[in-house]
């Protein structure tokens, strides 16, 4: 089959043209070449991804995360400049109820990019996400905010 992953082929084609900012014949030929060979090479390593059930919610989630990244940056910047002796670092275990690897990956990445937390590890049974907080004020509150703010929409987006 020429296009085992049609969506990825399309994405590669578009991204290559965007990266080069041109639609000259040479780049179109190259883009077609990549769009065919790369999916063909990686199709064997692929695992099943859940479908996005609610695209609108996904877009809202992305916007919310982008806003949170801005807030996180300012917060962490202030913490870094402020006195380090007052910082209160902590490891926290967050129970998660996501059944898919993609969902867990997205949650972990979001947690890393947003206020004061970096995800360090997922337990083998995929029921716990371990995070490191730069400045912990209230453990229960932090766990609750991650579950409410990020886990819930991810669950709804993938319908799991």
């Amino acid at each position, binding site marked *: 089959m020429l296009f085992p992953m049609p969506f990825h082929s399309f994405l590669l084609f578009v991204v290559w043209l965007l990266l080069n900012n041109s639609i000259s014949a040479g780049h179109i030929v190259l883009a077609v070449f990549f769009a065919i060979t790369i999916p063909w090479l990686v199709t064997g390593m692929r695992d099943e991804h859940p479908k996005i059930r609610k695209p609108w919610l996904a877009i809202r989630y992305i916007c919310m995360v982008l806003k949170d990244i801005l807030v996180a940056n300012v917060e962490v910047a202030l913490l870094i400049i402020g006195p*380090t002796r007052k910082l*209160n670092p902590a490891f926290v275990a967050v129970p998660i109820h996501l059944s898919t690897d993609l969902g867990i990956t997205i949650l972990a*990445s*979001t947690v*890393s*990019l947003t206020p004061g937390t*970096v995800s*360090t590890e997922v*337990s083998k049974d995929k*029921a716990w996400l371990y995070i490191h907080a730069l400045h912990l004020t209230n453990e229960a509150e932090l766990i609750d905010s991650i579950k409410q703010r990020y886990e819930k929409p991810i669950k709804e987006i993938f319908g799991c």
Partner: protein
Amino acid sequence: MPFYLEIIICICLLIGGIFLLIGSYGLARLPDIYMRLHAPTKASTLGITGVLVASMVYQSHLKGAFSVQELLITLFLLITAPVAANMIAKTALHYRTKALDRTHGQELMETIRDRESPKPPSES
């Protein structure tokens, strides 16, 4: 180049520069590796984004067409930064790197390293 564009570019460059500086400063200043991770994953993403937005405005004006490469770079950065941070944290835990003494939940570190579920408080 119109004056207002120059202002926009300057502001973006300034914001980006400040955040990059803070990110690097944090990397040097924070006491242990787990805390240092926070500086580059957060402050630097915004810093780079600021610089890239400035570049985007400038290039768009220069070429007369909207330049999207910078947006792609930002997107790739947002995808890869947490993964890199995660790998560094994993490595640090694997080598049993000591966390700062006042870190809470240090008893969790072995559990995290072995990727087990945390024990209920009654057992530990």
